[in-house]
């Protein structure tokens, strides 16, 4: 069964690029344009991994992560969270890890980088 990935980014272009890469890796891809949409999705679904932007309208990636951590996935494994953002300072990266992110992709990224990170969190 193919793995699933929720791409959370307010940029349509980024979502399209990510979808293209992920589908070529046989992922089933869902999209959300902000943290709130992502949270609504995660209340009803359990993707294997979430690719999460930092700065988004309505609800940021960090705000999403805070709320996401409170979700109960029952016996299922918690989805992996991979930040994918232009916020590339070490302080941002440390804050993301502290908040529960499993991996961090600094934009711009290419297929190889994304694939490597997904391998690191055990979904590729």
């Amino acid at each position, binding site marked *: 069964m193919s793995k699933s990935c929720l791409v959370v980014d307010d940029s349509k272009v980024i979502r399209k690029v990510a979808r293209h890469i992920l589908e070529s890796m046989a992922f089933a891809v869902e999209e959300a344009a902000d943290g709130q949409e992502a949270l609504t999705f995660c209340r009803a679904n359990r993707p294997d991994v979430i690719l999460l932007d930092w700065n988004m309208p309505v609800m940021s990636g960090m705000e999403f992560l805070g709320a996401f951590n409170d979700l109960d996935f029952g016996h299922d494994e918690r989805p992996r969270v991979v930040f994918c953002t232009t916020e590339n300072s070490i302080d941002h990266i440390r804050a993301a890890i502290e908040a529960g992110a499993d*991996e961090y992709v*600094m934009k711009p990224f290419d297929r190889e980088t994304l694939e490597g990170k997904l391998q690191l969190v055990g979904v590729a």
Partner: protein
Amino acid sequence: MMGSASESAYRVLMGVLESRTGQSLSPNRIWRIEMSLKPVMQRHGIADLDALVAALVTSTSRQLLDDTVDAMLNNETFFYREHSVFDDIATKALEHIREVNALSRRLTIWHCGVSTGQEAYSMAMLLAEQAERWAGWQIQIIGTDVSYHAISRARVGIYSQFEIQRGLPVQRMVRWFDQTEAGWLAKADLRRRIEFSVQNMLVDRPPLTHPADLIFCRNLLLYFAAPMRLKAFARLRAVAAPQSFLVLGAGETVLGQTDQFVASPRLRGLYEPADQQVRRVAA
């Protein structure tokens, strides 16, 4: 198909590479020569490959020769390349070495063809994170490569955003690297654990103080023609401890290449000195 330069120019360049490094250019790399050498030609104000060859033949510039050879080498590497190999090394291989060297409490690692250093830093991080386990042990990590440019970069220990993201878990990145304007700099505590030096493994003896317990030689031997590869295996065996491990690249094997090493019965994908295997079986 080759580029616009004359065939003799390619032959000279391939000869230069082989004589300096022992490496041969496979047909699928030949077509990239011109592209690889473009920055070198620009830096030295040389118009095309024929002019480069003429300059190499007539000039006494060591820099031009070094730059030319460097540009033709493949320095592709990244952190924790093939994670599963490092997982096996971190647990099983190192545990075996600990047992074998329990008295000497010495661990010697040679990264042959280390390129820009990521593989050596990967091992250094791994061992540093097992500080308690290795307390009281004398650990030597050596990284050698024929490319002076790659070794210079390895010594400095600065990696671009692209390089630092390749294979390195983010937790380790923030623990062992500082973000600087020039890139991600390996912390001094990590850099001091590795000695890098420019060496041709076919000619030079690595600066190891003791036989190597673990030798990495990944994706290097594939660039050697068969006779050179045979010599390379002999060089590796000459410095390998009797009960040691050799790590090759994913697509590489010893099968049909050498009788100096055999597949490890303990660890899939790793190799051990062949004579040691004979002794084990005999015992």
